[in-house]
Each structure stands twice: as structure tokens, then as C-alpha cells.
């Protein structure tokens, strides 16, 4: 679920931080910059693990700050494909089920990756697994909101959310209607169509 990512960055220490120990100041700055952010093709950064190497610092004309190249390792949330994880159902829609892990929300189980046969109860807006006990009796197992759910990671998608230049084609509307703007930077696609997957209560006997 978590991995260590080795990165290199130039850290600018402003003059008012000079009273601090250099490593402490660098650790603070790195944690401020990366914690709770998604790095493209890396994952969701959690916290600094350690500093590996500090290179020489530089001062540039016109700037009182020092600039240091730092090699460091960061704890990153990046589950591998096929990993089994546990989360909570956040909400459901016709498209599928949205799962949250508390610190990470963008997990989606598409309708065709639910246990088969699954039906959507549009009245309650929840999905249910029509479990066949025998030929005549079917049992509906509901996937209620906030219920613990075990799923398998099947795909991951990174979206580059770095701002692009001003939109010159459509200057008329001031309201950003572009759905791309709202896209989460890192989404996990999951599946529960396997025995043992799905709500924890289904399998705990």
C-alpha cells in the first residue's frame, strides 16, 4: 500500500529560517511542499522518510536565500495493481460505488466490476448483490454507505492537473465549466468481482 519514493529537489531556505538547524529547515520545507499532495505518476505523498544527501548550497544575486539540492525519500501511498485493500463505501451511483480510505477518497468500483449479479436500488441509491442461495430463493446483500469493503486494485489513472495557459478560444464565459478542472489527480479503479471481496460482513460468516 505504501512505498518509498526517492526524489531530488532544490530547496530554498529563506533567510529567516537560517536560525534553524539546516536539516530541520529542509525537512520542514519538504513536508510542507509534498505532504498530502499527489505527484504525477508517483502517488499520494504522506510524509518525509529521511534525507539521503544534501549537496552544496548556492546563493544567487538578488536573493538572500540559500538553494540546496537535496536527495530524500518520501512515504507515498501507491498501491500496486492487484493489491487487496480495505476501505469504506462513500457513496453509490448508477455508474458504480465510490470508496474512501479516510486519507484517500478517489477509489471507484465500476458497476461491471461488482459481484455478479448486482442491481442498483434507485430508491435508496445503493447497490445490492443478488446472492442466489438456491434456485428459488435469492438474497439481496446491500452495500450500505460507510460499510467496510474489501477490494482489489485493477487500474490507476494519473491526471496532469498542472494549470495550462489561459484559454484563448473561449473568452466569453467566465465560469469554468470544463469538467477536466474538477478531475482528481490520482484515481484508483477497483473490482470486487471475486470471492472474498466486497463488504466485510458478507464473508465473516
Amino acid at each position, binding site marked *: 500500500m505504501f*512505498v518509498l*519514493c526517492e*526524489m531530488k529537489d532544490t530547496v530554498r531556505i529563506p533567510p529567516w529560517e537560517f536560525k534553524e538547524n539546516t536539516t530541520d529547515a529542509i525537512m520542514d520545507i519538504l513536508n510542507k511542499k509534498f505532504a498530502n499532495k499527489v505527484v504525477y505518476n508517483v502517488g499520494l505523498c*504522506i510524509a518525509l522518510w*529521511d534525507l539521503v544527501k*544534501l549537496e552544496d548550497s548556492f546563493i544567487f544575486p538578488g536573493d538572500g536565500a540559500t538553494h*540546496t539540492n537535496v536527495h530524500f525519500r518520501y512515504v507515498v501511498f501507491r498501491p500496486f495493481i492487484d493489491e*487487496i485493500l480495505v476501505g469504506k463505501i462513500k457513496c453509490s451511483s448508477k455508474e458504480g460505488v465510490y470508496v474512501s480510505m479516510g486519507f484517500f477518497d478517489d477509489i471507484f468500483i465500476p458497476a461491471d466490476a461488482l459481484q455478479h449479479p448486482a442491481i442498483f436500488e434507485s430508491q435508496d441509491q445503493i447497490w445490492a448483490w443478488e446472492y442466489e442461495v438456491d434456485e428459488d430463493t435469492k438474497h439481496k446483500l446491500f452495500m450500505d454507505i460507510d460499510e467496510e469493503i474489501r477490494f482489489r486494485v485493477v487500474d490507476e489513472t494519473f491526471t496532469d492537473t498542472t494549470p495550462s495557459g489561459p484559454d484563448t478560444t473561449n473568452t466569453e464565459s467566465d465560469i469554468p465549466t470544463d469538467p477536466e478542472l474538477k478531475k482528481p489527480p490520482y484515481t484508483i479503479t477497483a473490482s470486487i468481482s471475486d470471492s472474498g471481496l466486497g463488504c466485510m460482513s458478507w464473508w465473516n460468516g
Partner: protein
Amino acid sequence: MEVISENSALLTNYEVFSLLTDIQNGHGQRKPNKHQQNLATIVYETVKYLENTSCKLQNPELLKVFAEKVSRFNLTKAEKLQILNQRPTTAVEIQLIVEESEERLTEEEIYELLELISSCVPSISDGEKVEGASEDHEGKEEIQEGNEEEEEEEQMDEGEGEVHEELITEDRNDVQVGAEDNDDDD
């Protein structure tokens, strides 16, 4: 910013949990200050998630014993990692985690593995009675031991994405500062 290696090692939930509780308690790294809302948020939320998993009750000695005992099942690193993180209690969970488990493990072995897990890895549902639940987070020693532990696992399966021991056992704060002189100039 430049990414040197996006996956230089896999971490167990226990290692992440002990790092984050250390940050919260100000061991090793400083507590998040008021300018580090992001760090405070993610640490709080992640700890909240991990607190409800069995990694809260794990410790380096226990992981070491487990790694030694589990080696005879010939599982991959990722499978062992998931077993530690998920603490499966039923055969169906083992079948989920272990790829092609029908071919690689006999039914007997699956039950032996479950037995090993229940004896070695404390369960969250056993509550506070479990030994080690009140472990104090003495910070670095634990994390370093945790790392050596990870090392061992890695050596067992000819480590893809190997971590170098020198890097790991190095004190987190004890990094050579090549630039101290520059700062003090003038």
C-alpha cells in the same frame, strides 16, 4: 523536482504507522507546526485509518519471527506484505492474496499458514489484551529495526527495488551537510 526512483522499497503498514506516530509525538521529526496543515491533516487521517488495522499491534521482533517462519511457504514479497497488512483469517482471504494459490499451496498448507498468522500476528479484534499493544514508540530504533526486517524479506526474494543497507541504517538526521560553510560566509 526530479523523481529518482518512484518505488525504491515497499513499506509495511507498521513502518508507516510508527513513522507517523513519531511525527505526531515529535520523535525524529518535528511536530507539524501551524504552517504545515497539509502534513498535519494527512498524518492524522492516515493514522486514523491504520489504527483500525492490526499493524497497530505489530513490532519489529514479531515481524522478524513471522518473516522467518513464513519463508517456507515460498510467497512473494508483495504477498507477505499483504498478509502482514491485512492479517487474513480465512482460507478465502489467502486465496485472494496469494496468486494461483490452488497450485502453489495445498489445502493443508493454507491452514498451516492461517495458523501461523493467528499465532504470530496479533489481531485487532483480540483487543488490548494482546502483548505488545502498549508498546511505546521509541522512535528510531524501532524504525531502523523495522527496516532491517524489510531488508531480510527483500533478500529472500532476490530483491527487485533493493534498498541499500547503508542508507537505511543511517540516522535520519545525521546527513552530511556539505554546505554549512556557504551559509556562514560573510
